[in-house]
C-alpha cells in the first residue's frame, strides 16, 4: 500500500497534468455544444467590461465608417417608410394574422470578435437587462452576422457565422431554392451553401438570403453571393456552392438583433411533431 502511495506521489505531476487536461477537454466540449449552458465566457462581467474598454478605444478610429454606413442605411429606410405611409384618403383594413410583425429588433455594439479560429464568437455590449435572449439572430446592414449563444446581465456572446457549428437556413433569391449556409473553417470571406440539389439551375452572382424557415431570421436578409458552382464530389446528389459573404467580419462594429416573438410557439410545435429544426 505504501509503495502504491509512494509511486503515486512520484508521478504526481503527471496525474495533475492528466487531470487538468481532462478538465480542459470537458470545458471545450461543454462550450461547443450549441445547446449546452456556457458556464463562463466573455459575457462574464469583468471580462466584458475589459473588452468594452478595449472596443471603446479601437472603435473610435472606425467611427467615420460606421457613421457613413448608418447614414446610408437611414436614407434607405426613409425611402421605404415613405412608400409605406398610408394616404389619408384610403381605407384602412386590419391586417391578417399572416402579416402581423412577429419580429422585434434591437441594436448592439460588438466589443469582442475573432475570425481566425474555426469556432468564432462575438461579444456584444447588451445583455438580458436590455432584452437580449439566447437564440436571437444577429445581423448588420451588410448581412447576417450570427446568432446569440448565451447572455449575462450586461453582455452577451454570439456565434459568428464564421463558426463551423452554426447553420443558417437560407435560399437562393432568384429561384427560391433553399439550403443551409455553413462555414467550412477556411476562408473568412467564404462559406458553403449546402443541400442544394443537383438539378437546380444556378450560376455565379446569384444572391443568397435567409429563408425565414428557421424562425430566427426574418426572410430576405442577405448572406452573400454565389461565387463558385461545382458538382459535389462527396455526395453527387447535391451541388457544391461557394458563397462570398456580404458581411465583412473584420469590420463588424454595430449590429442589430432580431427576436421572433412567435419562436416559442413554433419551437414547441416542432418539438411536438418531433422535427429538429436547424438554426
Amino acid at each position, binding site marked *: 500500500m505504501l509503495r502504491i502511495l509512494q509511486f503515486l506521489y512520484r508521478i504526481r505531476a503527471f496525474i*495533475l497534468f492528466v487531470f*487538468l487536461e481532462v478538465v480542459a477537454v470537458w470545458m471545450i466540449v461543454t*462550450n461547443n455544444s450549441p445547446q449546452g449552458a456556457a458556464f463562463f465566457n466573455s459575457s462574464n462581467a469583468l471580462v466584458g467590461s475589459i473588452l468594452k474598454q478595449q472596443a471603446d478605444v479601437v472603435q473610435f478610429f472606425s467611427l467615420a465608417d460606421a457613421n457613413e454606413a448608418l447614414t446610408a442605411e437611414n436614407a434607405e429606410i426613409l425611402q421605404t417608410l415613405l412608400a409605406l405611409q398610408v394616404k389619408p384618403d384610403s381605407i384602412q383594413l386590419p391586417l391578417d394574422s399572416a402579416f402581423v410583425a412577429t419580429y422585434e429588433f434591437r441594436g448592439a455594439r460588438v466589443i469582442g470578435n475573432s475570425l481566425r479560429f474555426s469556432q468564432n464568437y462575438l461579444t456584444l455590449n447588451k445583455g438580458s437587462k436590455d432584452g437580449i435572449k439566447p437564440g436571437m439572430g444577429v445581423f448588420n446592414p451588410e448581412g447576417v452576422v450570427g446568432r446569440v449563444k448565451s447572455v449575462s446581465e450586461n453582455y452577451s456572446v454570439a456565434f459568428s457565422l464564421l463558426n463551423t457549428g452554426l447553420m443558417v437556413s437560407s435560399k437562393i433569391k432568384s429561384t427560391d431554392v433553399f439550403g443551409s449556409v455553413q462555414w467550412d473553417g477556411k476562408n473568412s470571406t467564404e462559406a458553403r451553401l449546402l443541400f442544394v440539389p443537383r438539378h437546380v439551375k444556378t450560376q455565379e452572382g446569384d444572391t443568397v438570403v435567409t429563408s425565414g424557415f428557421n424562425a430566427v431570421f426574418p426572410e430576405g436578409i442577405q448572406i452573400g453571393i454565389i461565387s463558385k458552382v461545382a458538382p459535389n464530389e462527396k455526395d453527387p446528389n447535391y451541388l457544391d456552392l461557394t458563397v462570398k459573404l456580404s458581411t465583412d467580419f473584420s469590420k463588424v462594429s454595430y449590429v442589430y438583433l432580431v427576436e421572433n416573438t412567435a419562436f416559442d410557439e413554433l419551437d414547441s410545435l416542432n418539438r411536438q411533431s418531433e422535427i429538429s429544426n436547424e438554426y
Partner: protein
Amino acid sequence: MNIRNLISYLVLILFLGLVQIFFLKNLALFGVAFAFVHLLGILILPISMRPVTLIFIAFLLGLVLDLFYETIGMHAAAATFLAFARSLWLRAISPTGGYVETEEPSLSEMGFGWFLSYSLPLIFGYSMVFFTADQWGTGGLWTILNKSFFSSIFTCLLVILVQLLFFKRRRRI
C-alpha cells in the same frame, strides 16, 4: 525563489497576458501565423520550480486567456501540456553538468542556440494542441500543421525579440 522574484515573475506574466489580449489577439500574419507571446511567461519560470506548481500556473494563465479568446479550454489544455512537457524537455536537453540551481531558462543566461532548441519545440507542441482542439472535426491535419508551424516560428521570433529588447539591462525583469 524569494518574494521579490516571485512578484517580478507575476508582473511579467500579467504584462505579457495583457499584451496578448489587447494587441495580439486578432493578429494572424497571412491567416496562419498566430502570436502566443504569453508563453514566454511560462517558458521563463525558473528551472528549479516544481512541475506541479508550474502546471497549475500554466493552466490558470491558459484559462484567463480563454475567457478573452472565447475558446474555453483550448488555451488551458495547450498551456497545461506545455508546462508538463517543459520539465521533460528541460531534462532531455540539460547541458553536461546539469543546471545551476538558480538558473532561469532565458536567452541572456543560456545563449541563443540553447534557447531556440528549448523554446521552439515547446511552442510547436503548444500550437499543435491548440489548433487540434480548434480544428477538431473540421479542418484537416494539413491545416493544423500549417498553422502550428508558422505560429511557432512567429511566436519564437517574438519571444526572442521581447527578451532582447526588454531583458537586456537587468537579468530579471
